């Protein structure tokens, strides 16, 4: 056990799985970096360094740079997975799904169903999401709801370094296509992470704290923000349960319902847009299945229905923060 960053935790999970299973290969734009040039090989290890060090250990047959052709190399991951490999392909920023989504949602996601249960497509697509980098509208979105909508895909949104390692290990071992969302703002976050491999099962939410008055369900980086809000609320005498679903598909509906039945109130925190979102999905599930337990209106704390702005002041106003969560809890309690 030692302190590791979110970046190191993901890297370690991939490296350990590559040691365990020779069918695990990694590819993406500059996942090594430097291929074909005269300078350093493994120059980048991914644009933000998550796959750094894999090339020297595993060599160019298992760690491949790609042309900037997301349709071709994400589709190649689907084709490779359906024929016996376990690729971990990187779609650098999830915003780039726009140029390759067909290969994900029409091909990989549907093989098993369309082919009558005979296909197995064990692939992981790693992708970065999230605002806070001043990266503006096409490098900052949180598009996990789009993937959550698609039957056949599993969607993972880890909220801390410990979570990231265990969930990445499970993602690589999993036999279904998995979209693994990494919040780029969190790469340098650190916590104690075991050195040995461990897998965190999908569809099992965790409670980061338990309280009596309100259930706050938060996604990805918002789990940490929700915990900050819960600290504030505690000072005001309000005790909150904070639920981290870990995966939006499958979603641990049972745990969310149980928590809402205990507290009688629900606030969902999601840094994505509000419409047809994970936040609205969880809200509707609770409204359907725990209506009688509710003592106040369900509240959603989300980004507004706008693209992500560039100016730092606007971007800071775009992302949910502890104060907005505290306000929402107060409305739910009123």
């Amino acid at each position, binding site marked *: 056990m030692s302190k590791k960053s979110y970046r190191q935790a993901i890297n370690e999970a991939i490296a350990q799985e590559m040691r365990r299973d020779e069918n695990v290969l990694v590819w993406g734009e500059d996942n090594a970096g430097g291929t074909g040039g005269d300078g350093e090989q493994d120059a980048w290890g991914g644009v933000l360094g998550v796959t750094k060090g894999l090339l020297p250990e595993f060599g160019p047959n298992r760690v491949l740079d790609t*042309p900037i052709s997301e349709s*071709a190399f994400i589709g*190649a991951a689907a*084709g490779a997975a*359906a*024929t016996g490999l376990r690729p971990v392909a990187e779609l650098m920023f999830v915003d780039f799904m726009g140029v390759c989504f067909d*290969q994900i949602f029409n*091909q990989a996601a549907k093989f098993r169903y369309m082919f009558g249960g005979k296909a197995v497509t064990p692939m992981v697509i790693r992708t970065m999401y999230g605002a806070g980098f001043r990266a503006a509208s096409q490098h900052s979105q949180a598009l996990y709801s789009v993937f959550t909508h698609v039957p056949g895909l599993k969607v993972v949104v880890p909220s801390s370094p410990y979570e990231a390692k265990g969930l990445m290990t499970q993602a690589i071992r999993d036999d279904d296509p998995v979209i693994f969302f990494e919040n780029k703002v969190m790469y340098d976050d650190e916590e104690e992470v075991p050195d040995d491999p461990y897998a965190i099962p999908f569809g099992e939410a965790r409670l980061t704290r338990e309280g009596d008055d309100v259930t706050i369900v938060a996604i990805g980086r918002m789990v940490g923000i929700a915990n900050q809000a819960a600290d504030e609320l505690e000072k005001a005498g309000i005790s909150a349960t904070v639920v981290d679903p870990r995966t939006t598909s499958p979603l641990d509906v049972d745990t969310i319902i149980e928590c809402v039945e205990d507290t009688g109130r629900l606030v969902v925190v999601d840094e994505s847009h509000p419409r047809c979102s994970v936040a609205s999905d969880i809200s509707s599930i609770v409204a359907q299945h725990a209506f009688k337990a509710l003592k106040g209106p369900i509240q959603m704390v989300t980004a507004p229905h706008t693209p992500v702005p560039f100016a730092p002041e606007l971007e800071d106003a775009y992302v949910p923060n502890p104060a907005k969560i505290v306000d929402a809890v107060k409305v739910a309690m009123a």
Partner: protein
Amino acid sequence: MQLSRDELIESYRVMRTIRDFEERVHEEFSGGAIPGFVHLYSGEEASAAGICQHLSDKDKIASTHRGHGHCIAKGCDVRQMMLEIYGRGEGLCGGKGGSMHIADLSKGMLGANGIVGGGPPLICGAALTAKYKKTGGVAIAFVGDGGSNQGTTLESYNLAKVWNLPVIFVVEDNGYAEATSSSWSVAGSQMDRAKGFGMPAVQVDGHDFFAVHEAAGEVIERARAGGGPSLMHVILNRFFGHFEGDAMTYRAEGEIARLRKEKDSLKIFRTNATQAGLLEDADMDKVDKEVAGLIDDVVKESEKATPPPLEKLTTDVYVNY
């Protein structure tokens, strides 16, 4: 590459099976027995048969929405194919895929595809598997002239070359992307496109099994030997519309009748094989009779077969969920 007598008869059987399968699907679809969309391969038989004759189960193909011919040539079970097209529970995909998603991974058939240009990226991945695992297999992406204009196809040319993959891109150019002529919709030429990516390319008459077979042998051999991707531009014709129900008003008057007379790949095969003294008419007559019986049988069975049970609606989405 000289084929044995048995291999020749087998190749003719593949072509005859495709033809009779498609002509019968046309008939049954017109009568309302078959649901959905179907896109028929009649007229293009020599391409699938000539190319797939070189392949075994370790070799992978990805097909198009005009996929029945590729399926048959790659060894998929004809009975289960017909059951699938009828939407029956015993179909090749349990009745959940249908004509546009018919597949059999155990035969190396990675699926027809409802998305034009959907296959080439998948084939790059299948080829990477073959290369990494050293199976000796190759992977073949069939696209039409329409699919040749998709970014996925052009990206895959680049990726296959950059990764030096054992891929063959087969552009089956039947002259029409849906209702639009390839003479209008394809800028430059298929051959020049391949050249632009540094890929060897060959153009071949897709009505002539022997020409396709010989050209395919060379590009497949190169891919197996580690020589990287190639492109085949196969020029052929389809006897039916883009899909069944297409009135084909965009085609010239008498075009289909002329093609059936002059460009019928089965007739051309028969003439070439008998003139060269490789087979006799009786050999092919026998195959014709056997295939006619087979198609009759599978249609009769498909008509009577049961649909998938309703509980299958929600199965096979995930391995675990």
